[in-house]
């Protein structure tokens, strides 16, 4: 009994999040009238409290960065998980503010909007802090089910309905395939704990199994990877992304592109780290780890190239940003393919950089939808002069997305490329460099449309609150870029808590 009470202490952030979800649901039932913005403010306030709890947890974890025991046999408390929980809380707060600040979205912003967002966050919290495949799967599905409903949240809107339909069909399929892969992994190793699977008790770890029966192991691993690839929209499991991102309400798209994608990467990093980067495994079965590394590198190259090439052809800004987010998933994959602690840390850092620039870019999209009533790049014409602050902020985000200094995107790419070259993936870094140049073309088209054309006088007023938030994000993009040290230390410390070989003091 005491164990349970002690365990609850470690799960305080999760419990607080669950309590918040319940409060929102009940408060929504009790309230009078249609205005539910107080629920949005409650969500934002709740996020602040949970962020404070998480920061306390971060500090309380000692030098190793993780709690020595697995809570209730399932939950792992480490800085890696805490990093991504903070990430989730941060993006959820911004998304909730987007809903609050945008008057068209606010109309739809009934209590369930916030409830589903918080529910998705609970799923993320559990999936990023476990080595147990059962809990991982449950967290993933909780996130997915909330996301499906959110994608179809504008009930009368055909596009939103279609997005939800496509999302749940592909999502259900990929979850099924992944579950089947997990069942095979369970059969091959006799455990559902990732660490036990990797190291193996009594010589039945995955590496040892691979030595005797490579085909079943390969099938199982590929099926599970397919499920993750879907979640982070890596080619060839990306095709749902543009449709769903375009059809879903813009704040929801923001949530999917930032929080949901980062959570998928967090789980993928944990999975690869536990199964393929175990000390001793590399020596026994070299081929096993190397092939996975090569597979990830090829996926990375194809993903970023296809994402950027498709983005070039888009005229719809929302769809363009969707393809751009696919390309960025490809960049993050460089860190995974490196299969080193340094590479993982670079991937984590890049995701944090991605947080600022992508939240900002989608925020601009929302602002511009409200002001111009359209999603086309062409109808941005001359709006740069009408809304200078927001437009300049957007230019900052685009510079960062391209990876040019002095923004956080530049340092993110720098550490990624550095880790890639260090791991002997120079060819992949060259591909990524070429891709960054390619992305400049379509990012520049937005800037050109904003500033180098005459406006026609059809646009309405922007939302001042939303504009302010975007400006803050753009300042953060530059400031974090100039002073990237603390963030770098955080991502290093988070990655080391995975139990990977420690980082050398290289840079």
């Amino acid at each position, binding site marked *: 009994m005491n164990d349970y009470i002690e365990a609850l202490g470690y799960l305080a952030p999760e419990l607080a999040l669950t309590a918040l979800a319940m409060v929102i649901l009940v408060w929504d039932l009790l309230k009078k009238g249609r205005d539910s913005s107080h629920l949005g403010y409650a969500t934002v306030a709740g996020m602040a409290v949970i962020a404070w709890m998480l920061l306390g947890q971060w500090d309380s974890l000692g030098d190793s960065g993780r709690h020595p025991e697995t809570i209730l046999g399932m939950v792992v408390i480490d800085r890696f998980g805490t990093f991504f929980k903070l990430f989730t809380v941060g993006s959820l707060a911004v998304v909730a503010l987007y809903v609050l600040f945008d008057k068209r979205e606010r109309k739809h912003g009934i209590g369930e909007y916030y409830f589903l967002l918080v529910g998705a966050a609970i799923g993320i919290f559990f999936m990023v802090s476990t080595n147990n*495949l*059962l809990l991982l*799967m*449950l967290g993933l*599905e909780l996130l997915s*089910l909330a996301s*499906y*409903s959110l994608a*179809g949240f504008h*009930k*009368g809107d*055909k*596009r939103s*309905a*279609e*997005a*939800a*339909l*496509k999302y*749940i*069909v592909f999502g*259900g*399929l990929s*979850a*099924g*395939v992944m*579950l*089947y892969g*997990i*069942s*095979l992994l*369970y*059969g*091959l*190793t*006799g*455990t*559902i704990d990732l660490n036990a699977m990797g190291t193996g008790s009594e010589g*039945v770890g995955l590496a040892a199994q691979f030595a005797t029966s490579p085909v079943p192991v390969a099938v199982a691993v590929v099926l599970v990877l397919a499920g993750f690839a879907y979640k982070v929209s890596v080619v060839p499991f990306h095709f749902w992304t*543009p*449709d769903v991102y*375009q*059809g879903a309400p813009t704040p929801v798209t923001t949530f999917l592109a930032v929080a949901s994608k980062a959570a998928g990467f967090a789980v993928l990093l944990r999975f690869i780290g536990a199964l393929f980067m175990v000390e001793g495994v590399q020596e026994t079965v070299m081929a096993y780890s190397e092939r996975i590394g090569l597979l990830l590198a090829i996926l990375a190259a194809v993903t970023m190239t296809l994402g950027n090439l498709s983005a070039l*052809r888009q005229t719809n800004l929302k769809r363009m940003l969707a393809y751009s987010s696919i390309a960025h998933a490809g960049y993050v994959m460089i860190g995974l393919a490196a299969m080193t602690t340094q590479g993982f840390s670079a991937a984590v850092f890049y995701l944090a950089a991605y947080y600022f620039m992508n939240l900002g870019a989608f925020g601009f999209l929302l602002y511009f939808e409200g002001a111009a009533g359209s999603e086309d790049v062409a109808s941005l014409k001359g709006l740069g002069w009408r809304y200078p602050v927001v437009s300049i902020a957007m230019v900052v985000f685009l510079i960062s997305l391209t990876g040019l200094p002095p923004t956080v995107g530049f340092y993110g790419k720098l550490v990624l490329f550095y880790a890639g070259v260090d791991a002997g993936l120079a060819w992949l870094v060259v591909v990524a460099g070429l891709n960054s140049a390619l992305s400049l073309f379509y990012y520049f088209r937005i800037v050109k449309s904003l500033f180098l054309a005459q406006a026609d006088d059809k646009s309405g007023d922007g939302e001042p609150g939303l504009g302010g938030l975007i400006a803050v994000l753009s300042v953060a993009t530059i400031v974090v870029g100039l002073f990237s040290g603390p963030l770098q230390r955080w991502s290093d410390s988070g990655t080391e808590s995975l139990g990977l070989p420690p980082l050398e003091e290289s840079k």
Partner: protein
Amino acid sequence: MGLGAYVAVSAALFGLGIVTIISRRNIIYILMGIEMILNAANINFVAFNRFGLTEAGSLEGKMFAVFTIILAAAEAAVALAIVLNVFHLFDSIKPSEADLLRE
């Protein structure tokens, strides 16, 4: 009957599920295909738990199967709600007729 028979049945069910999803145009059949895949995984979990490498008395696989059943139910509930909304708006439950979002 040994482990092999169970795994063969589950593999067949998995394959049939994939074929159903690819070949059928009706969303209800597609959802049924997904259920078949989930149940294929369930057969695996239970069979591996009984015959596989697990320690004696371990319930991990069976527990996983129970939770998968719950997951399948939850997913079906959300999916049918979405399908109902699509049917209201498009007067059809064929995914091919909901095609506003494309290049």
